[in-house]
């Protein structure tokens, strides 16, 4: 049973009568939000709200094997067990894969939810399910139908510093196209870094000037624009014009100013620290993510992968696990040392896990019946195991957890009211957490 006190469960409490009416009934036409839409968008993406916390995501595109990483089954027959041995961790009684040796040392900060479940086994629909919390597209008609959790965060909280994009994807948004905003509006799509932060000539395309364009010219253009951009503001009282002005100012500031470019500049980090994160895409992406949330971004998603190991899973994992382990562990350590761990949540998940039973090609196939996600920091309890899989993996043994439960947990920690609803294209209010409720064991 859910508890009925405190903040762990909320229905309509805390909502003003007006909000309550909107939730209880379809919105009648359009209110102030529509009238000043554009301005609201510009403000929403540039002003801070919520608890002041932010989120860093490691997205294991393609589906990471839970059984070779967090949820080991050492007692199972060899064809289930896989090739790795479990090792002890800093959290009492918790073991993880030997390939997660560095996370093992900080496992008292890290929690696992081992009973995540949804009901699709195909990449695209599953990716949508995990990225948005909801089933929607099918293989054949794969257009996104709901906003990603990152876009919900972006729209609800904005950035903590007006120069920074609130929601960033490193290096790019995941290929299925489900990390976007859909009906929340284009302003809440992720800002794509567009390059591997570990590459020698790492540069953010959107912040670097095209070939042949000098900074001086951009300065000239900015000055001229200010003089010529004289269309009376009061011709448009929808706020769109005002919003666009705010974004123009922000874009010019991002390109010509120092604040944002500094945030993206990894060279100012100590070499030793960079080594600790690992000189690979995952490690440097994690370090960049930390710099971005420090500078004011609210959600940074690191897209790793491709983890779709149907064949020869061992060599596949050998290339992915060590860098992922280094990146997550170094991030936890670094945030802890900086006293930021309580303010930055870390989340690692993908569209599903992988079959407990190895297939005939020494690989594992898609498995959404029961898999594991990792959460750390942001004020949640570390060293916890929530839920359990069956003896050899397979199904959920204890505490079935649906994707929206995870997002309810994250939203709540970030200070987004769980009763928030956003209208879809037909004007129907859609709850950001639907049937999900926060995982109280982690709070």
């Amino acid at each position: 049973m859910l508890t009925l006190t405190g903040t762990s469960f909320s229905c309509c409490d805390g909502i003003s009568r007006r909000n309550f009416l909107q939730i209880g009934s379809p919105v009648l036409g359009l209110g102030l939000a529509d009238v000043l839409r554009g301005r609201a968008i510009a403000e929403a993406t540039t002003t801070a709200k919520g608890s002041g916390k932010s989120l860093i995501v490691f997205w294991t595109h393609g589906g990471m094997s839970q059984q070779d990483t967090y949820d080991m089954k050492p007692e199972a027959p060899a064809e289930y067990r896989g090739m790795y041995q479990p090792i002890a961790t800093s959290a009492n009684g918790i073991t993880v894969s030997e390939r997660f040796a560095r996370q093992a040392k900080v496992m008292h900060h890290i929690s696992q939810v081992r009973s995540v479940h949804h009901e699709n086994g195909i990449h695209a629909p599953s990716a949508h399910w995990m990225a948005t919390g909801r089933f929607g597209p099918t293989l054949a008609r794969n257009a996104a139908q709901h906003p990603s959790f990152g876009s919900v965060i972006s729209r609800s909280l904005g950035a903590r510093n007006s120069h920074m994009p609130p929601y960033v994807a490193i290096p790019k948004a995941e290929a299925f196209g489900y990390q976007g905003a859909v009906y929340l509006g284009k302003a809440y799509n992720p800002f794509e870094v567009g390059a591997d932060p570990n590459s020698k000539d790492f540069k953010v395309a959107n912040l670097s000037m095209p070939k042949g364009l000098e900074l001086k010219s951009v300065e000239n253009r900015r000055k001229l624009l200010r003089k010529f951009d004289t269309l009376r503001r009061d011709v448009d009282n929808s706020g769109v014009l005002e919003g666009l002005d705010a974004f123009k100012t922000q874009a010019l500031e991002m390109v010509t100013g120092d604040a944002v470019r500094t945030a993206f500049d990894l060279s100012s980090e100590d070499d030793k620290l960079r080594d600790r994160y690992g000189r690979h895409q995952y490690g440097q992406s994690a370090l960049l993510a930390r710099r971005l949330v420090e500078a004011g971004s609210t959600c940074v998603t690191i897209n790793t992968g491709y983890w779709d190991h149907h064949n020869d899973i061992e060599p596949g994992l050998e290339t992915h696990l060590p860098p992922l382990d280094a990146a997550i562990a170094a991030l936890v350590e670094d945030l802890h040392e900086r006293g930021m761990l309580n303010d930055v949540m870390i989340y690692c998940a993908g569209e599903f896990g992988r079959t407990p039973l190895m297939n005939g090609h020494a690989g594992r196939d898609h498995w959404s019946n029961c898999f594991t996600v990792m959460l750390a920091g942001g004020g949640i309890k570390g060293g916890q195991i929530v839920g359990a899989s069956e003896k050899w993996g397979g199904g959920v043994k204890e505490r079935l957890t649906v994707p929206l439960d995870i997002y309810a947990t994250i939203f709540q920690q970030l200070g987004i009211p769980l009763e928030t609803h956003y209208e879809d294209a037909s004007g129907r209010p859609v709850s950001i957490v639907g049937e999900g409720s926060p995982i109280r064991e982690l709070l």
Partner: protein
Amino acid sequence: MFDPLRLLLIAPSLAVILSAGVSASVANGAPESSTESSPSFLVDVVPILTRYGCNGGGCHGKATGQNGFRLSLLGFEPDFDHVALLREGRGRRVFPGSPDSSLLLSKAAGQVPHGGGTRIQIGSEDYRVLRDWIQAGAPGPRPEEPTLVRVSVSPDRQIVEPNSTLQLKVVAHFSDGRSRDVTDRALFETNLPELAEVNETGELTTNTRGGLFAAMVRFGGTVGVFLGTVPFRGTTIDVQSAVIPETTNTAVRDAASSVNRLLVDQWNRLGVEPSAPADDFEFIRRATIDICGTLPTAEEVTLFSNDKGADKRVRLLDGLLERPSHASWFALKWAAILQNRGRGYSTGKQREGTALFTAWIRDSIAENKPYDRFVTEILTATGSQERVPPAIWYRSVRTTKDYVESIAQSFLGVRIQCAQCHRHPAERWTQADYYSLAAVFARVGRKGGFSDAEVPTSEVLYLKDRGEVTHPRTGEVMTPRPLGGPDFQLSKYDDPRRALAKWMTEKDNPFFARTMVNRMWGHFLQRGIIHPIDDSRSTNPPSNPELLDTLARDFAESGYDVRHLIRVITNSQAYGLNSAPNESNREDLQSYSRFYPRRLPAEVLLDGISQVLAVPTVFPGGPGTFPVGTRAIDLPDENVTSTFLDVFGRPARTTACECERSDEPALAQALELVNSSEIQRKLAHDDGYVARLGGNEESHSNNTVDIFLRVFARKPSSAETETAVDFLKSETDRGEAYRSLVWSLLATNEFMFNH
């Protein structure tokens, strides 16, 4: 000052409603139930559950209920609710032996922990009603009990002065002819709280702003509406006079004159003065963009401004309608509404089909195919998608949900999505309406086609011998029936889609012509008379009902002549106004007393930049290739990679809603302007316009005039020329100086908006 004359102008039915309210047989609030002693479940209990939000979509009314307790949304299914209250929850929800210990009361009153908090005060009238009902054995809906038919609100429309209050009265009408005052049981909400708010007792309070608003009243499962007009100024302004357009086309002149009269009537009623007329420069830019999706060239602007003919605007509009770009631009619009989608199917074999469908739409517009025929050909398409282009509509529209929602939204202007799972909370539509419309398509058969995914292309559509749709709740097999119409009487040889198309395109159809004229009015005037354009319902009233009716009647009578409709709209007074507000209409968003600016759509903006810079966009093939010079408005579908088009709001074509085309500002757009390599390439192109400026012998001031005509379709002011010339002189690199100057103009709102 309250002006009773004005009230009479807009409220002819007020007196009738007032008298109906007064004649309510039991107006004192006494229980209207068959057993005098106990409250009725239908009349008393369910409305209380609705009023306190218990059965709202955020709480127990949602599909899975809340914490194990589920009620029907907003009390639409009282039988279901009665079972939920009495038989579920181990009988603890309702306990006649000790009413106060019933969870229904103890939770609602906060006596035991309740996620929804305390909602009803112990001892309140509503608490007492619930308690009495429980004590009486919690009787359910009785078969002989009169049912709630509708609620009326009085007054139902009125002018309400700024900063004043008005008490609404709500009367419920029952099937036995009786009625009852239910003001204290109803739920109130206004659509524009910045204009007016309404409190729990039904008292409206207006703000200082002027405008039109609606207040929705909900009681039990029904809704009623009050329409309010808040004048912009307390004093009457001089009566404006309607203009008669300078056209020899008498049909257009008569219709546009009627439109103008209705616009002027409303301006007078609202106390707004329209803005000044747009000048020639503004008008040619606006009309070329709206009709052809294209910017006027510098030469066109100069010719038009030098034209001394009194009918020059009429001639301009007629000429624009004949251009190929008019067909391209409107084909782009319709291809989005008709979801002619290339992406999102896990298959790359869509291009032939999407190109064929787009070409068919373009041809239909180029030949000005009557709108009823256009829609009928799509709806009733039969045969191979390789030979019958409109049948390609059935590629994207292929499920029960698609059929109903696309038809309703595209052609009937109704968003019926809600009724898939429950009665529409703000309209009369029920699940039966939804699935009866779906039944029209139950016999649509598909065969053949090749497929590399679940959605095949090149199917053949045919009429199956059988096929049915059942009501998801009752399991009843539905008879094909149009929205709000009678069942179709059909034999197995009749294609129900034909019957639907025939019903739709009858001159007196309440939806069809209205939806199209509203869509087109929205296209040219930025905002539909019903807004959003495809969301017609009693609770979202038109801002000028007479105007909508007049346009719809004229359109139907013209034989659904779309160009005639466009001529009427573009020759109207509203379309010819300046966008700059005056003192009285600054806050007007609903009466078209000035031209409301809107952003250039993504494709128009991209083509406009290409045209100004004289460097075409190179579109990557996607599947297929495009010749150099292909414009964005000519692309066959949305599956052509273009970051620019995506960030500036190109629709994904996944729904029939034009709202998919977004005009929202975003950071990515600003970054695209500031440092996209595409714009920089066009600025710096050796054969481009800016290179010519950099290399020519013209004076800076002459060049500046030409630049302004190209970019803004107007001449520069002397101050602007001075700013430009000063800058150009101060720079040593002439080429880079012109690049910077032209860039700065392309990034202005004046360029990026249609105003």
